[in-house]
């Protein structure tokens, strides 16, 4: 698993160039959607299969889901925004007291990824 930098700069291209599958993580805000569109353009151009995870779901609006639908892009899952879990993250304690909803969505994302990649 390669953790790529943000954006579409040359290190991003280098990171994804040998990958078999790309997971795009975005958030349902205008900034998120704008940057997602640029990245989707790049991945289509270099013919990489990819899917999208919407993080901080519940914030912002639904434009991102409309974009995914209109462009036939697979939604791997939504991770709901939780201020309490953001507090965990701030301490680096990502594996403590994971809210049930968030744990479920990770499980479902992993399940989908396993099917896609196999």
């Amino acid at each position, binding site marked *: 698993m390669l953790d790529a930098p943000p954006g579409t700069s040359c290190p*991003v291209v280098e990171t994804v160039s040998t990958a078999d599958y790309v997971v795009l993580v975005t958030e349902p805000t205008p900034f998120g959607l704008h940057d997602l569109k640029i990245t989707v353009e790049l991945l289509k151009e270099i013919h990489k299969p990819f899917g999208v995870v919407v993080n901080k779901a519940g914030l912002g609006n639904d434009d991102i889901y409309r974009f995914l639908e209109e462009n036939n892009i697979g939604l791997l899952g939504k991770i709901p925004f939780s201020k309490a879990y953001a507090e965990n993250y*701030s301490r*680096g304690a990502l594996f403590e007291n994971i809210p049930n909803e968030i744990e479920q969505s990770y499980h479902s994302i992993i399940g989908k990824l396993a099917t896609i990649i196999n």
Partner: protein
Amino acid sequence: MKEITILSGKGGTGKTSITAALASLATNAVFCDNDVDAADLHLILKPDIKETHPFDSGSLAFINPEECTNCGTCQEACRFEAIFTNEAGFPEVNPYQCEGCRLCERLCPVGAIQINQNLNNQWFVSNTRFGTMVHAKMGPGEENSGRLVTQIREKAKEMARENKAQFVINDGPPGIGCTAISSITGTNAVLLVIEPTISGLHDAKRLVELVNSFQVPLYAIINKHDINSEFTATVERYLGDTNIPLVGKIPFSELFVESMLHEKSLVEYVPDHPISLNLKTIWEKISTNQI
């Protein structure tokens, strides 16, 4: 004229939202989006483009399939593995890998390789409701984005002198890569937007090291301070120890996203909200040199 660059190290700290808020408070400034790889400031500032300029980001090799005899020389010689065999069985250049070094052009026995200038990138001078803005659009995976940052900063300063503006406000890129370096060199001050998380502080520290090496004065804002007040205290201690003045603390608020959905800065969207008043105080401190 004073140039202020807003940076965060880590992405997602709310840097651009804060830049937009300060932009709506600065009455006499030119704005410059230094995050050329993933520019977002225009989504709120809504620039009306007045000038468009091409940016030459280097050269790219192109193989003419009509002339190529498929001898394999170029593919073997390219150190960047930029030449691959396409579906037709012929060599082809991958524009994302090609560094434009021209070796293949020199080696090709039949002169089938041509080097083209890459003019895939552009920069703009625009009007916004807050004043002039200089910004750019880079194609994905393009090179030389650092040089593009230098170029648009130069233009922003020129516009500021022309408009007799007091400030140039640069919305910097995340990270500490070449674009970040280009947004720091020669600027008058760096305003750090730090999020009170372990990764936020870690990335901020690396950025502070970088900014210090250029001997540029630093100020800091802690954003989303109420996400972890204990860790906020840790960040404050770090700032105190390194003599970085803290100009303000902003709580987590969904209003930032909400105002973004209305294509407004938070200060425009809810001018009388405590966070807007807080941002006004911050801008006053920065603009009147109280720090």
